[in-house]
């Protein structure tokens, strides 16, 4: 504990910009020297893909090497650069504070994306993990709108995903691909990437329409009964698709063009987070919470509860549909089995692990469950013992999930950390700032 406190104190002066810079240096080190020098001298066969987790579990002999690699490539450079660079990152962050918030956020995001791109670019496996994780973030944030903010227990998310995935796939396949089922392409393939966003939006719209089937019963019932209805919806979608031979039936549908490279998925994910964040922090969106906490009181306070419920479902389903569309174009193959109870369990685990009623929580949940799932892959069967155990422990100590009922405060996240005024006001625990001011 003492160490943790000291650590926190030493690094409390590092702004977000400093951390990003540190990570950039780490990623550059890996990019230039990771394979030729560092992993070679540590006796590793290649660059460890997920911080060495896979190698460590497969070959225990490699554990020291993998840990050494993590230290040399990530931990030491990040900490060192972050700390040393405070001298100029803090003034820089302070000058960003004077810019409009959105500009500053955009600069940070571009910076962050550059790092992510470099890191993932090392090999294709990483690219795939990052893509699927980003899609999981969309799914988790969107189910949080229904299960967290609106407080229903909806199990139909894979169904919404399937609607989005199939709709957008059909559009791209019909228009741009010479396909067995749909015949020759109607438009030249060069239009594809430009039409693709509209295909995704159409997928989202289809999912939103489908969600009405769950939203309308929610006017009269909630809790367990609605959960059953939503579960039924998921199975209806699955069996419907299985029996529709026009779109491949149970064999699935493949050959989606690769319109979803990493930057596109990143942009959609950020768009999703931004829109959901705007929505849930507005009065319109907070109406979801009031309906969850006390419906009668909401009605008496002029809140249109039916409209609110419908909005929650359609909005959540829309993003699930978009996520499904991206998913289909990443894997270039979908079948109804992908949108079944397993997917549901995964999505629910992510949202409840991360935290209800919080976008940050959803992001944390999606990233940790995804990365954990990949990292523990060599354990095979035991993976499905360890992950549920972690979930159980989280539920014991944090019944609402890791980070619940908290919103992103971008301004606070990005600001300069050596401005004593900033620190004392918001963070009375910070002793450094108090020392500086002589309080």
């Amino acid at each position, binding site marked *: 504990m003492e160490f943790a406190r000291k650590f926190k104190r030493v690094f409390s002066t590092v702004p977000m910009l400093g951390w990003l810079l540190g990570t950039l240096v780490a990623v550059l080190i890996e990019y230039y020297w990771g394979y030729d020098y560092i992993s070679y001298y540590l006796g590793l066969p290649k660059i460890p893909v997920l911080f060495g987790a896979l190698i460590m579990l497969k070959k225990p002999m490699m554990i020291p090497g993998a840990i050494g690699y993590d230290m040399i490539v990530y931990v030491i450079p990040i900490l060192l650069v972050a700390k040393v660079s405070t001298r100029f990152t803090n003034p820089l962050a302070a000058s960003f504070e004077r810019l409009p918030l959105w500009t500053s956020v955009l600069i940070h995001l571009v910076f962050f994306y550059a790092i992510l791109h470099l890191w993932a670019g090392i090999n294709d496996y990483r690219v795939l993990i990052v893509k699927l994780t980003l899609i999981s973030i969309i799914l988790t944030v969107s189910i949080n709108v229904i299960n967290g903010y609106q407080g229903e227990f909806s199990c139909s998310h894979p169904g919404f995903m399937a609607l989005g995935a199939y709709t957008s796939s059909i559009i791209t396949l019909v228009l741009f691909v010479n396909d067995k089922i749909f015949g020759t392409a109607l438009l030249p393939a060069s239009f594809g990437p430009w039409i693709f966003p509209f295909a995704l939006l159409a997928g989202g719209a289809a999912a939103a329409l489908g969600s009405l089937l769950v939203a309308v019963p929610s006017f009269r019932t909630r809790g367990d009964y609605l959960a059953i209805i939503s579960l039924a919806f998921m199975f209806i979608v699955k069996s419907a698709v299985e029996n529709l031979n026009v779109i491949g039936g149970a064999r699935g549908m493949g050959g989606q063009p690769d319109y979803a490279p990493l930057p596109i998925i990143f942009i959609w994910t950020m768009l999703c987070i931004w829109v959901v964040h705007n929505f849930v922090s507005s009065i319109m969106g907070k109406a979801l919470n009031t309906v969850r906490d006390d419906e*009668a009181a909401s009605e008496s306070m002029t809140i*249109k509860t039916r409209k609110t419920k419908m909005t929650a479902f359609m909005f959540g389903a829309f993003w699930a549909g978009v996520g499904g569309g991206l998913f289909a174009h990443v894997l270039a193959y979908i079948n109804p089995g992908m949108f079944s109870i397993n997917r549901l369990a995964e999505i629910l685990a992510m949202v409840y692990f991360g935290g209800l009623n919080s976008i940050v929580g959803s992001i944390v949940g999606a990233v940790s469950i995804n990365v954990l799932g990949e990292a523990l892959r060599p354990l095979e069967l035991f993976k499905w013992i360890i992950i549920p155990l972690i979930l159980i422990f989280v539920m014991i100590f944090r019944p609402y999930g890791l980070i619940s009922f908290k919103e992103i405060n971008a301004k606070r996240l990005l600001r300069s950390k050596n401005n004593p005024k900033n620190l004392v006001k918001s963070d009375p625990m910070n002793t450094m700032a108090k020392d500086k001011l002589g309080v």
Partner: protein
Amino acid sequence: MSALLSVKNMTHYFGGLRAVHNYNLNIAPQQITGLIGPNGAGKTTIFNLITGVYTPTEGTITLENENIKGLETNEIAAKGLGRTFQNLALWRHMNVLDHIKMAHYSQLTYGLFGSFFNTPTCRREEAQVEENSYRLLELFDIKQHANQNVTNLPYGAQRRVEMARAMATNPKVLFLDEPTAGMTPDELVQMIKIIRQVHEDFKVAIFLIEHRMKFVMDLCQYIQTLVFGEIIAEGPPEEIQNNPEVIEAYLGKEDLT
């Protein structure tokens, strides 16, 4: 003077049970009316009928000569019937400021897409709402709690949050369902003061259910007594205080033998 809110011959059945029978009410602008009666007489049912939680089986309800019977609760509330609840009905995961903000819902015009993309209209309206909310918080003396979760407040303050929230809907008639239930004598005195102040500042008519006679007699200009869903007496406080039927309903019949 024409009535602001008027209820005529309202009757309501729950299945075969007649909960309210032939109920009439006229509330003039800025009048404070009390509804008293023993437990189970149907007072809260009358509140729920007028505010649209239930739709009465028979009768008419008009607000400023406009029919409001059969509308949804939120529409009736937006037309100008604000209310508080007998058992506090606060949103337990929300802070005090948000409570007041939420009650401005019907006054927003930016719509869903405004909220998705945080448009200038949205920002402007939300800023207005926030300003207005702080004004109300100050008036009800809960500004110091603005960013606290509502469940962490003392009971009296929670009651005030509920009142402030009801006032944020800009009501013409304010319905108070036992505003002093479970309050200490100190809090009671404070509550009377607050209700008086609301009445004067907002020029609002008030319709309240209450059990404490001191409170009712102090505040109300007109009182109705309800027993088993029927009005047995109504009039100014002094009249009600001495009405033998009212005394009988509350204390039982005097044994003359």
